[in-house]
């Protein structure tokens, strides 16, 4: 490429710095490539992976059990809890403020790792040890150290960047919301055996805040105490990524803004922060880059939603074809027989529920949830002042033949002067399961079509059944089918807002089986059409 000479310093800078930049991919990438290139070797790798996962799980389980046992056996108190014991009998004590305030025994590990290292590779090894090794390590001979305290009970991790203050019982007062800090110290830190971490809480009446004074003291030969100041504390969920770089900024600012520390001390720390060695800078960059918890696979893919679908209920109503009306002569010969099939008026209905959806791919989401539905339509009838005898045509489920059963009716399907409406209603609970396909959109607005099935339990309702001669209606809620299956089809728009997404679009819900049991000689299938409104939140 003949144009490839950089006449511009700016372009040269970009080129150089971009070429210097390295990132280390996760193991997942190589495994995916390997599986793609060698599909025949997939099963062994899956088996090995399963074995490894199982072994890691068991090791983790045993370690947790051991720690809890040790804590209980040692009779540790709430204010001075043992973190973990190392093989040579060294012990580390955990300050109260690092633990939950409840009185349960916690499995917690404390690790100190050196901050100054020579190469990126050794850094990565250190980081892996920091996460994986459950025992405290005080291997640092460098100026600064990172303490990572994992609290297994609440899955939170506290990171402390520490330095050696060299003075007794002197610690920095730090607000709890401090995260991570600049590493400063000119004095060597830990290289002996026993380390004690102590903390005291202080209430500041003026600012109405509580601050922790934290001192990590290492006892050498059980005599000399060396105090180590905590520069910063970060507390994170195990699964969350920590933006260490941003956090470092925050702490720098916080350190500068501290009012309860002598100004000189603050200046000293800030100045020291600007005089980092190249190695420390390199370490910080790599630490910020690589020492992040692995993102959970479902993170960002899972979302929850709540929705409400106001709409109307429609129905299809027809004679059950398995009923042989000709074999029921009394039905067709009754007075009034031949009256038209009863009409109805669509009524207001609604569905509401909650669910979760998982983004199986960029454009496909799998959904499941729980839904409550209310169906409702009206039948115009004439009120009869006194009960009349009528019949319902029912099926004998054993023989398949229809028969008549007498019932009393208070409403008629023939014109009269006392017009009113009766309502057929059901209350249902269902478990919708389905998929949504993204048709298009941008970062703000997306368009989906979705469909699914809804196994449904009918909890109850009102059922006015038309009589054999179509002249009357009989209230018979026991004829409602208890279990049904619905299908739904919908299309909707997602509109993303701050922290959540609004969803709106038309939905059609269709009942696959008759609303009534097989005994009734008519089939009725309900449709619900409505506008589904929802709020979606990413988990």
């Amino acid at each position: 490429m003949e144009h490839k000479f950089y006449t511009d310093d700016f372009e040269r800078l970009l080129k150089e710095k971009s070429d210097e930049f390295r990132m280390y991919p996760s193991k997942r990438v190589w495994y995916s490539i390997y599986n793609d290139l060698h599909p025949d070797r997939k099963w062994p790798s899956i088996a090995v992976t399963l074995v490894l996962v199982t072994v890691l799980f068991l090791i983790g389980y045993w370690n947790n059990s051991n720690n809890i046992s040790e804590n209980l056996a040692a009779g540790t108190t709430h204010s001075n809890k043992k973190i973990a014991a190392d093989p040579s009998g060294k012990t580390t004590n955990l300050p109260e403020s690092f633990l939950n305030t409840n009185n349960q025994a916690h499995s917690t590990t404390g690790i100190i790792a050196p901050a100054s290292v020579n190469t990126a590779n050794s850094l990565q090894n250190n980081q892996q040890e920091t996460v994986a090794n459950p025992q405290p390590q005080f291997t640092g001979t460098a100026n600064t150290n990172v303490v990572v305290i994992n609290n297994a009970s609440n899955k939170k991790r506290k990171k402390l960047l520490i330095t050696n203050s060299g003075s007794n019982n002197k610690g920095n007062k730090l607000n709890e919301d401090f995260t991570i800090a600049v590493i400063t110290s000119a004095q060597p830190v830990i290289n002996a055996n026993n380390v004690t971490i102590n903390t005291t809480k202080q209430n500041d009446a003026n600012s109405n805040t509580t601050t922790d004074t934290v001192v990590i003291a290492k006892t050498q030969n059980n005599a000399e105490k060396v105090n180590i100041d905590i520069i910063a504390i970060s507390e994170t969920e195990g699964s969350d990524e920590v933006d260490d770089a941003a956090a470092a900024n925050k702490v720098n600012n916080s350190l500068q803004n501290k009012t309860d520390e002598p100004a000189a001390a603050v200046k000293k720390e800030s100045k020291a922060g600007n005089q980092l060695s190249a190695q420390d800078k390199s370490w910080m960059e790599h630490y910020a880059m690589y020492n992040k918890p692995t993102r959970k696979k479902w993170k960002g893919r899972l979302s929850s939603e709540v929705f409400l679908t106001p709409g109307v209920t429609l129905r299809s109503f027809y004679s059950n074809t398995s009923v042989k009306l000709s074999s029921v002569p009394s039905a067709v010969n009754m007075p009034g027989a031949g009256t038209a099939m009863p009409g109805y008026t669509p009524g207001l209905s609604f569905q509401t529920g909650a669910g979760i959806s998982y983004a199986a791919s960029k454009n496909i989401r799998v959904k499941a949830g729980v839904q409550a539905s209310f169906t409702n339509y009206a039948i115009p009838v004439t009120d009869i002042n006194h009960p009349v005898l009528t019949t319902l045509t029912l099926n004998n489920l054993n023989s398949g033949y229809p028969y008549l059963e007498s019932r009393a009716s208070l409403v008629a399907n023939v014109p009269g002067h006392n017009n009113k409406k009766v309502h057929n209603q059901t209350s249902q609970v269902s478990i919708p399961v389905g998929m949504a396909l993204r048709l298009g959109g941008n970062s703000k607005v997306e368009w989906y079509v979705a469909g699914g099935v809804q196994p449904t339990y009918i909890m109850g309702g009102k059922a006015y059944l038309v009589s054999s001669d179509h002249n009357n209606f009989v209230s018979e809620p026991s004829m409602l089918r208890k279990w049904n299956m619905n299908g739904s089809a919908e299309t909707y728009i997602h509109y993303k807002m701050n922290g959540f997404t609004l969803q709106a679009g038309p939905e059609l819900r269709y009942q696959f089986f008759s609303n009534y049991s097989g005994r009734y000689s008519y089939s009725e299938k309900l449709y619900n059409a409505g506008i589904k409104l929802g709020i979606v939140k990413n988990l």
Partner: protein
Amino acid sequence: MTEELMLAGCLKNNAASQEALYNRFSPRMLGVCYRFGKNREDAEDMLQEGFIKVFTQIHQYRNEGALEGWIRRIIVHTCINNLKKNKKFADSLDIIHAKSIYINEELIPSIMQAKQVVECIRMLPIGYRTVLNLYAVEGYPHKEIAAMLDIEESTSRSQYTRAKAMLEDILVKKKIIQKPKDRISLVAAQG
């Protein structure tokens, strides 16, 4: 393992050689993908797709240039193909649209050196960023960039000019580089 051995093994579809080649080049190639992609996950997906192409097409490598350069070209093309699948990317190549984008400097991380420069590049609108990456970092001529992105050559030039101005502005404000323009240099290097 030497490059020749790795190549010979890869040609025989040998897994150990493939892994050695991957381990040697993946950190730098992930850095390339990261400059083009939305985030780390996106970059790793591109890297995966790119290396699968590398291993399946390695018999096309003629030993006429550096192996790293050949791999890099495949990775860059994979990144571009991925970006082109995104409708937002096509929109972002529209200069008028890109002009309206505001860069929040506070979001630029305050960590040093190469990563800081790369993160500043990533703050640019995706269209600007892609052209700048291809021209200034990867060294493609505007004519080739225009062909790759299905745009006019003049569009590529103007995208680059604007991207460069925007990035310069960010880097100067973040005190990573100093003006005047003809004396651009790293602040840290002088300090």
